[in-house]
């Protein structure tokens, strides 16, 4: 080991959602401190939702995050419905599944092709792919476009989807578009299998014992189920908050969380570790070899898990769309105008929790638990492990800085953090 002092600052991490900086302090060849700073400016959603009519709030909170707006929309709608006793129809739940699948396909594809693949291929950007490999750009765009078109068909648009509302969908699916979309989804399937294989063969490894937490849904549809952890916890969605502790992160416009007193991880890896048996039968058939990887405590397998979730989303969407029979429905109505309730779903990056109180049709209170905020403490521990490993690896100080920069960015990207989301609802205010 070489004794050295190093202050590494990475300003504006690229290829993640939103703005974050990372500071690492090494003294005498030993790690002293890691500070991950969420640099997003807060937009004060806590205050903005208060007093607003409940029906307008899902579209308002959709603006928390551009990339996973559909997750915020869906979780908020569920919270309103649980609060006011709205019972969505079977068809509405099915359309919500399709909407969530459309989100997973394009959001995971953006992360894997645009953010992670460049690290794996040793290039700066997917746009820099050498001529012989340019087909990966086309595949990336086609897979994303299939998700984008599914969003359009079911929910009106991929970002701030206009059709998904409290009690139901405002527009019905155009039946003439279904065969076109089914064939588009089928057409990109080989590209998704290729993507899965790329991340299966990815040699990156970081193992550190941690706890994985996810809502376990019976058909892997990201919507309804019990919250489970690999440590054996089984919790109702509405009780989730009681198991969490807020952790203040210095210098950040965000805060982190612990689950039952310890760091934990949510997201695709947690879902695959806890629930791979519930994936679509076609996914299980064609990805059997890759699914043997799970459960895994290699954090980089989050990328493989995301690729597998694209395949599942595609396979289940093809089945649901092919079954057809969509009919026009009136929205389900609330049975009361005041109350309190919880909506929880699996967003692309993990469990997303909305706790809402409504008085006479107006929102009185809203508290959120954001996936990235839940992962921040675990991520910081993983960065520490990587830096400590690099310090002990015996590389010379001038190479050490480069190695740490590269490896730290790689592990941060494996988490697919979303800083736009993480910077909200940092102040926990339980006064009613």
């Amino acid at each position, binding site marked *: 080991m070489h004794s050295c002092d190093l202050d590494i600052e990475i300003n504006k991490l690229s*290829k993640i959602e939103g703005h974050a900086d990372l500071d690492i302090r090494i003294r005498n060849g030993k790690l002293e401190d890691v500070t991950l700073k969420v640099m997003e*400016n807060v937009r004060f959603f806590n205050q903005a939702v208060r007093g607003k009519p409940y029906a307008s709030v899902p579209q308002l909170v959709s603006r*928390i995050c551009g*990339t996973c707006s559909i997750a915020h929309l869906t979780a908020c709608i569920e919270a309103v419905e649980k609060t006011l006793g709205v019972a969505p129809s079977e068809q509405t739940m099915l359309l919500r599944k399709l909407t969530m699948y459309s989100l997973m396909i394009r959001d995971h594809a953006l992360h894997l092709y645009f953010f992670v693949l460049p690290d794996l291929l040793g290039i*700066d950007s997917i746009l820099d792919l050498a001529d012989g490999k340019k087909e990966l750009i086309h595949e990336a765009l086609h897979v994303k476009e299939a998700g*984008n078109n599914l969003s359009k068909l079911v929910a009106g648009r991929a*970002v701030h989807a206009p059709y998904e509302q409290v009690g139901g969908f405002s527009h019905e699916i155009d039946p003439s578009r279904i065969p076109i979309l089914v064939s588009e989804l089928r057409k990109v399937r080989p590209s998704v299998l290729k993507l899965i294989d790329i991340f299966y063969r990815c040699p990156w490894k970081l193992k550190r014992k941690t706890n994985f937490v996810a809502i376990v849904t019976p058909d892997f549809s990201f919507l309804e189920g019990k919250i489970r952890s690999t440590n054996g916890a089984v919790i109702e969605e509405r009780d989730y908050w009681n198991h969490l502790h807020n952790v203040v992160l210095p210098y950040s416009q965000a805060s982190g969380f612990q689950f039952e007193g310890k760091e934990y991880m949510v997201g695709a890896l947690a879902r695959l570790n806890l629930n791979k048996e519930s994936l679509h039968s076609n996914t299980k058939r064609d990805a059997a070899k890759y699914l043997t990887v799970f459960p895994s405590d290699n954090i980089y397998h989050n990328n493989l898990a995301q690729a597998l979730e694209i395949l599942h989303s595609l396979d289940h969407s093809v089945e649901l769309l092919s079954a057809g029979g969509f009919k026009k429905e009136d929205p389900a109505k609330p049975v009361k105008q005041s109350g309190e309730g919880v909506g929880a779903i699996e967003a692309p990056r993990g469990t997303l929790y909305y706790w809402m109180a409504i008085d006479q049709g107006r929102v009185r209170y809203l508290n959120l638990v954001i996936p990235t905020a839940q992962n921040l403490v675990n991520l910081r521990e993983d960065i520490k492990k990587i830096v400590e490993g690099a310090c002990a690896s015996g590389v010379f100080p001038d190479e050490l800085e480069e190695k740490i920069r590269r490896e730290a960015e790689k592990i941060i990207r494996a988490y697919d953090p979303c800083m736009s989301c993480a910077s909200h609802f940092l102040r926990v205010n339980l006064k009613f």
Partner: protein
Amino acid sequence: MAENQNKKRVGVFSLTCDEGCSIYLTEIFNRKLVEWLDKMELVYFLSVKNKTDFSNLDVALVEGVVTSQKDKEELEKIRNSTKILIAMGTCAMSALPSGQRNTFTPEQKEEIREHLEMYGFLPQALALKEVVKVDDEIPGCPVSEEIFVKTFEKYLD
């Protein structure tokens, strides 16, 4: 590289917002990117690349509102580096919805005052044109696909 000499140098920048417009731009890319890459070089877009080059831009697409002193300085820097500056989306055009604090009641404003002071926020969130000269605008939340393509392509030829 010689082949790049005639290509427009394009940057995509995010000030304070949900980045919904730039995310939607990556969806518009699904159909248009390959064609546009014949005419443009994407020199700044943190969602897509790390190595960035701020200088001598032909077109800067800017989303979000100017909520902090840092946002203001960044926008001024972008303005000084680009021939054409396009406000991308409703936030950049009119400061809403990301500048929703402008619409708060006095009580709500008092509640967020400490945070504003601690993090160098401006008294009001501003639209781009309240800070620098804006050459063109693309409305929508997120940007309308049709208007984006029409407006952006004007500056690629």
